[in-house]
């Protein structure tokens, strides 16, 4: 009989009345990479947290390397050789890399010695990683934090490694690097479970795929004997069209134009550096860039949440610099930003969906009282149209699973009927089905003549959904390209700053702007169409 690293039998876990896992069977062979696939709220993270000791199953049995065990705490899990890299990293921000590892070390001795840095550096390089042990976590990029997490579990002697959505916040290049690491760990005899929503990654990295649907175990298949469509069907329970539409719409003149915009970040350094772009009605402008390249600051500035350093923001010919967030919302600009922790911005976690709806439109009610009836009706509409899985409209948002929380936010933003939508990472961590629902919503808005700024991560999605893509690198504009003429490789080069299209020509400036206050068109006789033509031409050169 084959030796299993993990064998979970009949695992059931409930939270109150919600059944997160129901009678689940899962096996992980020694030395394989198993992809765990399922929609948001299908219970993947819950299942994995029973291996990491965060939750205890209500019923069922877990065997590790053939021995039945009971995992009561993360400590037990660690002793059994299970290491989990959580979706939200479990790191202490103010500690150095070494101390984050050292704090969980068995028998560390009483006194902290400087030599611990050398020890950790040694161990990191033994595993094949480049790590500065003295670097503080708050100075690290997302990928560095992830590397640290992986070194941490390896250092604690994990033989079984669980990664919960490790690729959700990484760039294409970083994902490639991560997969090389995983393959190497596999060769060294580690058994790995990886959770991801991206089917191409599942096909690329895994040996087998286990599928969960709505808390139930569906099946486990060999990756080599399946394909993306079959996997989607098993995961969703019906056929899903995996093509993203890009309807063409008659473009209108620019709704929002940004000129020479410079913004500082919280630390006071330049986050956005003299950036120019414009959004027309009926188009989706993608914003690509490595995480933390000023996307957040840009969104906040447009929404009026962050003061700008210099430059102009023009909405339908009116300057919106210095307006209050409320005034900007009233002009029809809506901003929704899904941060890495998914809950940080836009929604109040302890309040119900109805209450969160009311947050946006309570002012519309007549008199001093809140119109709860309307809020509830809107909540019901959003739940229905976006298929939000929730016990009721009155359930606190924090109780919903990550993906479901996320559908509520764009749902609410669109309800207010905006003409410009700024949306950042709207599908971050969402499963395929929900992601496509979001794309559909955006396309519908586009067809209605809304201008959309789409800050995204997945280049494949951006290339097929957006009309144009602008690329940021360390806050600088690297150029704006037409999505149907651009390639993933080219965007990747621009994101890392190796390819700068703006050096040749001035990009992203609309020539037919309606802006009344500033005279700009005197020295720019070209039409917008010509300008765009040039942009795409310069893109062609690089191909």
């Amino acid at each position, binding site marked *: 009989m084959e030796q299993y690293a993990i064998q979970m039998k009949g695992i059931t876990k409930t939270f109150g009345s919600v059944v997160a896992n129901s009678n689940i069977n899962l096996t992980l062979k020694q030395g394989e990479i198993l992809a765990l696939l399922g929609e948001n709220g299908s219970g993947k993270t819950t299942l994995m947290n029973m291996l990491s000791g965060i939750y205890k199953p209500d019923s069922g049995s877990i065997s590790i390397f053939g021995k039945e065990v009971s995992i009561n705490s993360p400590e037990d899990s660690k002793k059994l050789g299970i290491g989990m890299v959580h979706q939200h990293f479990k790191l202490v921000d103010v500690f150095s890399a070494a101390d984050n590892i050292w*704090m*969980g070390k068995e028998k560390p*001795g009483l006194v902290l010695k400087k030599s611990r840095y050398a020890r950790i550096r040694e161990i990191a390089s033994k595993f094949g990683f480049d790590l500065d042990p003295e670097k503080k976590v708050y100075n690290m990029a997302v990928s560095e934090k992830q590397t640290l997490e992986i070194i941490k579990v390896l250092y604690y002697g994990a033989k079984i490694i669980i990664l919960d959505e490790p690729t959700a916040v990484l760039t294409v290049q970083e994902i490639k690097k991560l997969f090389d690491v995983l393959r190497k760990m596999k060769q060294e005899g580690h058994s790995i479970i990886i959770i991801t929503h991206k089917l191409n990654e599942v096909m690329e990295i895994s040996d087998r795929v286990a599928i969960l649907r709505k808390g139930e175990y569906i099946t486990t298949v060999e990756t080599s004997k399946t394909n993306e469509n079959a996997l989607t069907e098993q995961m969703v329970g019906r056929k899903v069209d995996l093509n993203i539409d890009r309807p063409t719409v008659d473009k209108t003149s620019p709704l929002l134009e940004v000129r020479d915009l410079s913004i500082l970040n919280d*630390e006071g350094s330049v986050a956005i550096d003299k950036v120019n772009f414009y959004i027309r009605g009926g188009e989706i402008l993608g914003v690509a860039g490595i995480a933390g390249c000023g996307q957040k600051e840009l969104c906040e500035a447009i929404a009026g949440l962050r003061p700008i350093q210099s430059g102009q923001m023009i909405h339908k010919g009116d300057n919106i610099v210095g307006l209050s967030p409320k005034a900007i919302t009233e002009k029809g600009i809506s901003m929704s930003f899904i941060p890495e922790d998914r809950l940080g911005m836009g929604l109040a976690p302890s309040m119900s969906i109805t209450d969160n709806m009311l947050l946006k439109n309570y002012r519309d009610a007549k008199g001093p009282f809140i119109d709860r009836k309307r809020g509830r009706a809107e909540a019901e509409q959003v739940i229905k149209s976006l298929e939000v899985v929730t016990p009721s409209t009155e359930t606190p948002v924090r109780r919903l699973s990550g993906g479901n929380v996320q559908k509520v936010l764009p749902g609410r933003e669109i309800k207010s009927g905006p003409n410009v939508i700024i949306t950042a990472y709207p599908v971050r961590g969402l499963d395929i089905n929900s992601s496509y629902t979001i794309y559909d919503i955006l396309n519908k808005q586009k067809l209605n003549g809304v201008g959309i700024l789409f800050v995204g991560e997945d280049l494949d999605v951006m290339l097929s959904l957006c009309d144009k893509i602008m690329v940021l690198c360390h806050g600088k504009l690297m150029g704006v390209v037409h999505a149907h003429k651009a390639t993933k490789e080219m965007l990747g080069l621009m994101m890392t700053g190796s390819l700068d299209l703006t050096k040749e020509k001035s990009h992203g400036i609309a020539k037919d702007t309606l802006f009344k206050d500033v005279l700009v068109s005197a020295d720019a006789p070209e039409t917008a169409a010509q300008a765009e033509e040039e942009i795409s031409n310069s893109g062609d050169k690089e191909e």
Partner: protein
Amino acid sequence: MNKAEVITSFIHNIIVFNIPLLYGTVGEIMVEKSGSLNLGVEGTMAVGAIFGYIVGCYANSLGVGILTAFLAGALCGLLFALLTVSLQANQNITGLTLTTFGLGVYFFVGNGVKATGWPVMGDYSSIQNGFADIDIPLLSDIPIIGKGLFSHNLLVYLGIIIAIAAWWYLKHTAPGLRLRSIGENPAAADSVGINVKLMKYLHICLGCGIMGIGGYYMSLNMSGSFNSSCWINGYGWIAVALVIFANWNPALAIIGTFVFGFFNTLRVSGGSLAAAFPEVFGWLAHIPTQLYQALPFIITAIVLVVTSIKNKRGSSGLPAALGLNYYREER
């Protein structure tokens, strides 16, 4: 008193009257570094004071008094930990309740004992002698500042030693690292196998025990005269603010204590300074006493404002998870 003696006594007073602040602050730093905000310092010190004093006197032993005060304080900590760590009660409310409770216990026990005969400190020679000043050889012979800085009672030295030990423990030991990790991110600490609950219980009790000794010091410094106002007299609250002033660093707490102590002592000894140096400090005599009394609290307010203005990332000692209860299965 000649002029040199006035200065010596001024320096001496800064330390003697304010060491309880150091105990309270260091104790609270221990508690807060575990991620728990205990606003019950005032009450904990009061409980430590009343039990430490009475039991210490009955046993006629300073050591028994210190130990009792520590245990009484630690019991308050145990109560706080039980409510906030195990039962997940709100920390702010629990802390405030602990203050009310502690002051209640103080007067209940104090008045009860007083009814049957209050132990007068002067009757207990070994307490009296134990609390007497001890000169540090050589250093205490330095003119003017020698007697001011290096001639103090045992509990002053103990307080300084505890503060330095706490600093070393937090910064340079592995258990200290683990404790800090809990205060910063309990989920991270839990995930690497640190026993979060146990660590919190231990350090809350330890910290509250230290506060208890501070309370006991207070009672001895007031010669154990029990009347209508509590011995602690708001020092517990100042200690909570001093934690922020010290940026959660027990070594800086020593400096913080003496800065506060300086202003506090102006209130007590400002008059004698004015008398000894009429040209330089004469104006001190014209400041109304009410202002002096308010001074420590005004300074507290100013310090809170200043420290909250400039905090570069990573430089603040504020534990990120301070005041938040940790529940492993919380989603």
